[in-house]
Structures are given as structure tokens and as C-alpha cells.
């Protein structure tokens, strides 16, 4: 039954119970009213409301590092000093493109949310972000399956103003990658397959010593 109907019924039956009865321990606010005549007494009796959380409910993801002992193709020594510092305190597994991409790599700390990296190779650029905090919107319908397998999991590849974009969840972490192509003939720029191949080849940096584990 809608709250307003309940309130009307309650009022009609003379069943109004003054608010304030049976309060739990609490600091109850003393109020005044400015601008208009103050209502004499709060008169609403009925079910309480629950609203929509603006911007979504904040939920922590729980990143996991695979127990593979690291990828021999990448070490922290291959990063510049700033990027290495970010990697050493990363709170989610750091995926990086390998080979010639490492020379143009820059890791950026995003605090509690995770990290972002920019990697360049010739006329292509990848922006890859890892997130360990999701926003929950209960009113959103469940997402259907994606359109690609990315790194062995269900993922989605789409395009935005000429920028190909991918998203997937791996090791408890949400990732997104955006690919900007100056040369459409570059292998990674040759359709979704080339992009997915680049993502499948990403390496995981060694797990920082500061990261604990377990539930």
C-alpha cells in the first residue's frame, strides 16, 4: 500500500500516534522553521521511505593476485621511477602491455579507486584503468552477456567516437581499456580482434609486498 494511502487511512481512523514515542537513544534535532509558518506538529504516520542513493552505493571490490609468481616478461625495473612507485603500492593487479609498449608507459595513482596507465607505441595509445570500488545501482537491470572473451572472461568491446573501448572483470578487479589509433593498419587497430589480442597479451606486474590476502 502506498505510504500516502496509509497515512490517509490512519488519519481518517484517528489513529495518529505522535512521532517521538518509543524513540531509541539518539540526539533528536530541535528545529525551527523560517520562511513560512511552521507546521504545528509533524503529523505523518506511516511507513518510512527509502530513497535512491545518488551516484550509486559504493562497494569495494576485492582484488586478488594470481599465484603464478609473476610474468617473466615484466619487472618493476622496466618502469620509470614514478610508475614504479605507483606499482609498488597498487591495490589492484597492474596489467601492462609488454614489449615496445613499455617504453611509453606511465602509471597514475587513483587513490582508493585503483590506478590508470597510459602506454604508447608508434601511433597507438592505450589507456587502461583498474577499479577496486564499484557503484551499485539496484534499479539497473542485470547486464546481459558481453560480446567478447577478454583474457578468458566475459567482456565487452565497444567504440566511442573512433576510440575502441573494452571492459572486463578479472581477479576481482574491474578493468577498462581505451585504444586510440593513429594508424588503422596497426595490428591492435585492425578491428576488435586486434584489440582483444593486445589485451590478452597484457602481463601482470609482480604483486606488491604490501598487499595482504585472505578474507
Amino acid at each position, binding site marked *: 500500500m502506498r505510504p*500516502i494511502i496509509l*497515512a490517509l487511512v490512519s488519519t481518517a481512523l484517528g489513529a495518529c500516534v505522535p512521532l*517521538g514515542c*518509543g*524513540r*531509541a537513544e*539518539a*540526539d533528536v*534535532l530541535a*528545529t525551527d*522553521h523560517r*520562511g513560512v*509558518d511552521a*507546521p504545528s*506538529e*509533524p503529523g505523518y504516520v*506511516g511507513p*518510512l*521511505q*527509502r*530513497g*535512491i542513493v*545518488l*551516484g*550509486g*552505493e559504493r*562497494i569495494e*571490490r576485492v582484488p586478488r593476485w594470481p599465484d603464478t609468481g609473476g610474468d617473466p616478461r615484466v619487472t618493476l625495473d622496466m618502469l620509470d621511477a614514478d610508475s614504479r612507485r605507483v606499482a609498488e603500492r597498487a591495490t589492484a593487479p597492474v596489467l601492462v602491455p609488454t614489449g615496445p609498449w613499455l617504453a611509453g608507459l*606511465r602509471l*597514475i595513482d587513483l587513490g582508493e*579507486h585503483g590506478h*590508470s596507465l*597510459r602506454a604508447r607505441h608508434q601511433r597507438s*595509445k592505450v*589507456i587502461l*584503468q583498474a577499479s577496486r*570500488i*564499484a*557503484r*551499485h*545501482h*539496484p534499479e*539497473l537491470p542485470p*547486464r*546481459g552477456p558481453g*560480446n*567478447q572473451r577478454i583474457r578468458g572472461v566475459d567482456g565487452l568491446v*565497444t*567504440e566511442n*567516437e573512433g*576510440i575502441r573501448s573494452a*571492459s572486463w572483470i578479472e581477479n*576481482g578487479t*574491474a*578493468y*577498462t581499456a*581505451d585504444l*586510440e589509433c*593513429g594508424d588503422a593498419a596497426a595490428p591492435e587497430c585492425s578491428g*576488435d580482434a586486434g584489440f582483444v589480442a593486445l589485451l590478452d597479451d597484457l602481463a601482470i606486474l609482480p604483486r606488491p609486498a604490501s598487499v595482504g590476502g585472505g578474507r
Partner: protein
Amino acid sequence: MRQVQPSTLVAALALLAPSVAAAAEPFYSPPGELVAGSGEGRKDEKVYSPGMRFPIENGPAYPGSQVYGIGGYYGPKGSQCDPGNFSYPWHDNYCEKRSWDMPLCPAGIGHQGQDIRASTCEKGVHWTVVAHDGTVTNIPESPDEYATYINGKDGIRYDYLHGEQTAVKLGQAVAMGAHVDKVSNHFGGTATSLHSHFNLKMDVAGYGFVYVPPYMSLVESYKILMGLGGKPPQGALEEASCEVLLGWAQDPDEPEMSIKAALYFDGLPSDPENVGVEVTADLYRDDLCEPLGSCAHGFAVEMPMSLRDDLDHTLHVFAADDGNGPAEEIDASPASFRCPPPPLPEGVRRLIPTPEVIAAWKLSTFWDLAKPGDAAIAVIPVGEDLAMQPILARADDGSTEVWLVDGEHRRAIPSAEVAGRWGLDLEAAELWPAATVDALAEGPPLRDAPFMVKGSGPWIYLIDDPFCDDGDQSALCGALPGGTGTGTGGQDSDGSSASASASGSGGTSGDGDTSAGSSGGTGAGMPALPPGFGSVDEGGCGCRSAGDGDGGAALLLVPVLLTLRRRRR
């Protein structure tokens, strides 16, 4: 893409633009209402970025379609600088017709952001600005590139495309309102029309990263930028106790209309640490009728369980304007409160492994999650992990009972009210062969309402009854009430196995074939799009779910679900 010519100075356009402040009608068309013929929009009133700054430095500005605007590839003939493109009302163009997959668009494909024209049709004049404090994670670094990304402290990535004269550097910390770039038409080696393409990209539980609609966030931030509206809304916070957050809100410009009230806990709207809740102040109160001249303006909000943690909290309450103006903080706001944790119910704790599971169950970590402390959680016996998703099933033997399939068990749903508290839609129950339903062990009935707990770590647990099969004499099943068929029950549970029932034919199924691919996936009848805006031929395998499979798909869900659960053990 059609080559567009940057305009000569058309500064007079700003003067031609109608005055919003004086306008009786909203300056924007509703969200999801796209330009006619440009596709199906998403009717979404949600402000995904509350507190954001409008991304163009100065108004007026004109969000709307480029492709379907005047001079656009599919728009009426004319110049991109036609005054009609620089006038109200705004038009949403998130989900505008494209061939690119977009999970949140009704058609499953569409435009990922919002195109915004500045006040005049001039190249390199109008600054875009930082929408939220954050860090720059991408800038154009060559003539091929035209994208700037700023990751806000709120976790949202704000994208600015097609600009020039970029004023930020990679890795730079930036504050709301700082210059980003100037509105232009850069699109790699070609040109687009003069506009800023603005995206919001965020990590959403159940989705992972996804582009979300920016339109209403733009609307709300524009009201503040332009100081729009007539008389400001008003209201009062009358009580902030552990029982209720009580008050009223009204817009004098529309005194009969029930408006929204936004309650911000532990910070103002622009603070990324706050939690904001929006409710409609539409509760009928006799005591409001005389002073306000209208009665349905009350709000009475439940104290969220997640804030009942024995810590001090602040509360700011804002009343929304009826349409054109910014929200106003109401009288007696802010307030503060401190509430003791709710009593912990008996039961076992079931790990909720990921945000995706929370999303699938439609659980609320704001309303239904308590923080009793690590010690209190540690002594709660551990039960099975929560199933990846709840499934509602009804046997095909004419039974009206709807069961919740929770892993390897079926559970009675005591009433429609209980189903409502769990966000379960009984009408959406799948029709299963009776033998399949009967083959599932009967677990305890669903509890009256969800109750979750979280300690200092990230793990979240649902407090629930244990699954105790017949003859289970384990300490867990012997020590706790609520084994199979008995249930701890709630005020709506009588402890029997009677289930809630659904009317109608039901019989909808799950996701259908998730492996079947199709090329393009753009649908019949979609016209070709201009270069750079996607085409009917591109865009991957298009493996979207059909969403309306037959009953056979439901049968397949059982082994799939059970397999998933076994793998986790």
C-alpha cells in the same frame, strides 16, 4: 563524416538564445527523448554524478545532437552554426543511433555520451572545465588524438573529446572548475562539428566499466551554473533521530507539486565522501495543509542501517526546484545524529563474493548493511556463499507457488511483501518442469528482509538461516533455529513452507543462448551512419542475449548454476 566548416564569429547567437531564467518551460527536454528519428533514448532521471560542475565554463550551452542537428549528416539542411542549434530546449543524445554496443541503451547499441555546443559557434574560444576534482589520465599527445580523461575522486571518469588548446597535463591533479581545453572540432585527421563530446564512465556493480547517461548530471549542474529558477524551494528538517529523518519540502513556484528532497550524509553534494539519498517529498500531512496551502510535501526517511554504527554523522537536506532552478538547503539543515548498531539476528553468515552478486540480488549495502565490528562478525557461524544470482521458479504442474532457487536449494517466499523487500519480482518467475523443482532440496524459507554485515575489511556477508538437509545433526544445524522447513521466520513468516504465488502466465526465462553470435547486431532498417560514427557493418560479434528464450533455457540454468557453485568450493 561530412566535413564541417568552422564558423565565422556568430556571437549574436548568444543574444538570440531565449532567456532560460525567465522561461516558464524547462530548458531541457526529458531524458531519453532524443531528436525525432535518431533512435531510442534511455529514460533515466538518475543523476550519476551528483555535485558535478557543468563542464563548460560559461553559459549558455546547448547539449543536443550533432548528427541529427541542423547541418548534421542526418539532420535538416543548413549550417552547423544555425541559430536552431544554439537554442533551448536541450536534447539528450545518449543512446542516439549508432552501431556500437551499449549495455544501458534500450536497443543495446548507441551513442555513449552527450554532445554539447557552447554558447556560440566559435572554434577555440570556449573553455571546458573540470567537472570534479581528480587526476588527468589522458590528454591528446599527437595530432591523431583528441581525448582528455579526468578521473574524479568520486570514481567517475569524465571524458572530453574534440577539444583544442589542452590546458592540463598527464597525471596532474586538477580542481573542479579548472580549464581543460577549448571547444573545437578535432577528430584525428578529420574534423567534426564544433562541440564537446562529454562522457561519464564508471565501474558499476553487475556491469564493470560502463558509460552511464550524463544528461541529468548536466541538467542539475547547469541549474547551478546559470542560477536558474524562480523562487527557491523551501522546507525544513524537523527530526533527525535513529527512528526517522523527518521534514518537508515545497517549491513555491509549483505549490501543489511534490518535489524531491536530497539527503546528504557526511558531506555536502560536492564532497566525494558523502552519501546522498533522493526521495520524493510527497507524504500527506494534515499539519502541512494550512501553512503550505498544500498537504503532500512530507518526507519521512528510514535511518539507514549502514549509518547506525555508533559514530557521529552529519545530515544536509536539500529541496529540489520544480524544474529550472538549483536545489536549496532547507531550514534546520545540517543536523547531526549518532545511532547504536541494530541488534544482530541469529543465523549464519554467507559470503557475498563480488559486487556483481550484490547487484544480481538487488541488495542494498546502504539500507540493509550493519557494521557491528569484527569481533561480533567473527563469532557468527559461516554458511554457504551466496548464490551468484537468485532465480525464481514455478513448477509447471499448475502450482502457483513461487520458489527462490538459492544454489542447490529451493526456498519458500513467505509473502509478496517479503518478496518486495528482497527486490524479487514474483511475476518474473520462470516456469520449470515440476520434477526439476521437486528435485531441489527444500531449504529454509526466505527471511523477512535482507540483513548484511561488514567488518573493517571489504567482505560483506548476508545473515541467513543455514541449509540443513534431513538428518543433518551437525553443530550448525543443531545449534541454530531455522533449519530446513522450520525457518526463523519474520513477522510475515508463519514458519510453514507456503510460498508466495504469482499470477499470470509467467514462463519467462533467463538469458537465452549466451554463445550465439551475430554480426553487427544493429537491427534491420538502421540507416548507414557517417564515417566515424559507426556503421551497420562494424562492431564485433554482437553476442547480446535474446532475452526471451524458451522454457528449455530455464532447465539449463539448474546445472549451470550448480556447476558454478561447485567450482567455488
